């Protein structure tokens, strides 16, 4: 007993930063191991590929994290991605300028998020239920709109974007930075970010302190919907088609990334850098497993085990000296 207490003597200041560093160390460690054990991992081609794989989940995970911090969950993001590919594809094929098509697609994401907010705030539905409902119906609506077919996008410039790089870094990864920096400022340095935490911790206390709880919830789901629609645009660009069944299960990957990144499903605990790192750790594991010729089924098992291990240790350290 006494050793434990002495070890825990120092207050854990800046826990977030510390945990972030640990995750970063884990990611670097994985990269070092994979570079040494495979010949192809460290190639420019593979790294670009890995960054592309991780980027989209990373952006989804950021939006998801906002929602989870308020104590909610957004199960619809995978379906929103798929639906957004359809919207973007249809608009572009109809001759709408790409810029406008993207804007409209993003607005569709915002609308879906607002709808979630409405269901939770005004209809009193649990977040799990309302977003589960959107998950299934959005896929249905998308299938109706496309008659179950894929729509090939006939616009080369649009597709070029996701294949190209800027300064040697894939454009898709730049998009993570484009989302990540404002998201970081929003969550950690603006009052709306503080409100996300306070609502997740105690909605009643926040309300009595003058926080607009309803608006905060609307905001979280809207941002999640926006991130998902944005990922939909990126995915449409990457695969060149609009297909409502795309991004199956991405919501779970986003949640997993967020949780690996230190977000608490009970709310009020989370960051932006955590889920980003979480997403790239997951991407690295998948990529590495491919290179090492590990059976794809095993990859899923490893991912599951990793979630348990990381969250367990995170919880242990959070509980600290007790």
């Amino acid at each position, binding site marked *: 007993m006494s050793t434990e207490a002495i070890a825990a*003597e120092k207050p854990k200041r800046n826990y977030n930063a510390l945990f972030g560093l640990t995750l970063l160390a884990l990611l670097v460690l994985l990269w070092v191991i994979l570079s040494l054990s495979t010949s192809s991992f460290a190639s420019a081609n593979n790294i670009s590929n890995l960054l592309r794989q991780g980027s989209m989940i990373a952006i989804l995970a950021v939006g998801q994290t906002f929602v989870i911090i308020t104590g909610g969950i957004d199960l619809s993001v995978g379906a929103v991605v798929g639906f957004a590919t359809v919207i973007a594809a249809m608009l572009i094929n109809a001759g709408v300028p790409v810029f406008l098509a993207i804007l409209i697609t993003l607005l569709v994401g915002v609308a879906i998020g607002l709808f979630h907010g409405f269901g939770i705030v005004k209809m009193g539905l649990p977040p799990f239920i309302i977003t589960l409902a959107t998950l299934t119906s959005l896929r249905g609506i998308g299938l109706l709109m496309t008659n179950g077919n894929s729509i090939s996008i006939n616009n080369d410039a649009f597709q070029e974007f996701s294949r190209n790089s800027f300064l040697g870094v894939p454009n898709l990864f730049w998009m993570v930075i484009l989302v990540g920096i404002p998201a970081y400022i929003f969550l950690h340095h603006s009052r709306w970010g503080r409100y996300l935490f306070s609502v997740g911790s*105690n909605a009643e206390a926040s309300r009595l302190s003058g926080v607009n709880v309803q608006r905060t919830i609307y905001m979280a789901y809207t941002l999640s919907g926006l991130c998902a629609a944005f990922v939909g645009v990126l995915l449409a660009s990457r695969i060149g088609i609009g297909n409502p069944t795309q991004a199956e299960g991405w919501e779970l990957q986003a949640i997993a990334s967020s949780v690996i990144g230190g977000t608490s499903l009970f709310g009020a605990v989370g960051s932006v850098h955590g889920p980003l790192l979480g997403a790239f750790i997951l991407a690295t594991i998948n990529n590495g497993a491919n290179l090492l010729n590990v059976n794809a089924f095993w990859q899923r098992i490893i991912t599951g085990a990793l979630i348990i291990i990381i969250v367990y240790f995170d919880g242990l350290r959070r509980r600290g000296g007790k």
Partner: protein
Amino acid sequence: MTSTAQELHPAPVLEPGRTILELRGLEKRYPGTHALKPVNLAFKSGEIHAIVGENGAGKSTLIKLLTGVMPRTSGEVIWEGQPAALATPHEAMALGINAVHQEVVLCRHLTVAANMFLGEENSRFGILQQRAMVKEAQKIIDDLGFDLPAHVTLGDLTIGQQQLIAAARATVRGTKFLIFDEPTAYLTRKEADQLFTLIRRLKTEGVTIIYISHRMEEVFELADRVSVLRDGTLVGTRNIAETNDAELVKMMINRSIEQIYHKEHFTPGAAILESRNLSGKGFENVSMTVRAGEIVGLYGLIGAGRSEFVTTLYGRHRKSAGQILWEGKPVQINSEHDAIKLGMALAPESRRDQGLCLNLSVGLNLNLPIYKRISNNLLISNAQERTQADRQIADLRIKTPTRSALASSLSGGNQQKIVIGKWLAHGARLFIFDEPTVGVDVGTKAEIYRLFSVLLSKGAGIILISSYLPEVYELADTLHVFRRGKLVATHGFRTADHEEILTQALAEKQEKLGGQT
């Protein structure tokens, strides 16, 4: 659990006066806090032993160690002559050590009966004997003289009533050693009397009792001996007959205070808020005025409708009739947001449910109402966030290692200081304090009352709700008495005596009780 009420309190093994429990160098460190420095103390069988001390002195920590809620860092606990590990609550209960904790730790969604027997349910072939349990629970509650139903959901009761249930629960488990951690904080006078009767009865049955409180008169009323903790150190133990108020306070805070109730009279200014025949859920037809520079006290039993009245003023609930005037003009207050915009501030009664974001930092909690002010359109000013929080921490002497410590790691009284402190920087015109000094130590109480005067001198008005009569009595310029949702009497500063006010607050309730039996 199949015992009947008669078997609930088995005779103690030890004759009265022998040492039943002894602490030898008991110590507890939390990360960043040395909460309990090695303490040596012996409790005698059958005594009522009071423990007093400032907020954060380590009282609750001591209790948590004794009840196995937390592991100790070092030291020994000797129970009936044998060292006891006390590693789990279960072990403590098996020995006969039970506690009623400072914050009610029961399941609010379960019934009273289910809570009473939680962990020791009465079941036959794996099927819960619900009806039998309700009956048995009701019998125990009646037997203790509490007028409460056993079949209702715990959350439907007031906090005070929940506390009584927690006390009842603690007595039904072959208890030999029972700890009360500030049990009267949320109790009305009448409930407190019921509790004291229970405690005295337990004592005659040979149960040893530890009684923690910030209210000196309770300590002198109940205790045989009293121990004082300061900063985790045991400063001394006294026989109650050989000590007095002043000595204990001096031991607690290492300085003396001449006067707890600091009262300055200001000439009341213009009316800030006026309620005209206001009705809503839990109260009806309430008319009153709050003027600049005055404290309006609302006294009554818990559940008399005072909190409902002020939360309605504050926009939390809808009014059903009547009018609210703000600075002479009729206003519609549809949300807390509207109220705050007008210039109201509310420190609610339940810090756990309404007052605090427990798993967030002290600093964030303190700044929550003023983030708009300490940020520009986009960003929060980190410097201001820091200075504002640190100022409240210093002004109210909130005992915390840093502003980034979690609110949940503070002692109960220090948490209460956050609930109040967060409004002090806000610069509101009307402050509503609902039971502001629950669980706050004597020194800080004096500090808070002094802050009231500062607010008044700046032209603010205060509505002060308290179930602790001396507090409203000594501070309120106008004192309204509530009974069952109605404003039944109004007094000026000290124009009525305690007896009269109490009768007014209680009258109808007693009639009703009389009518029931």
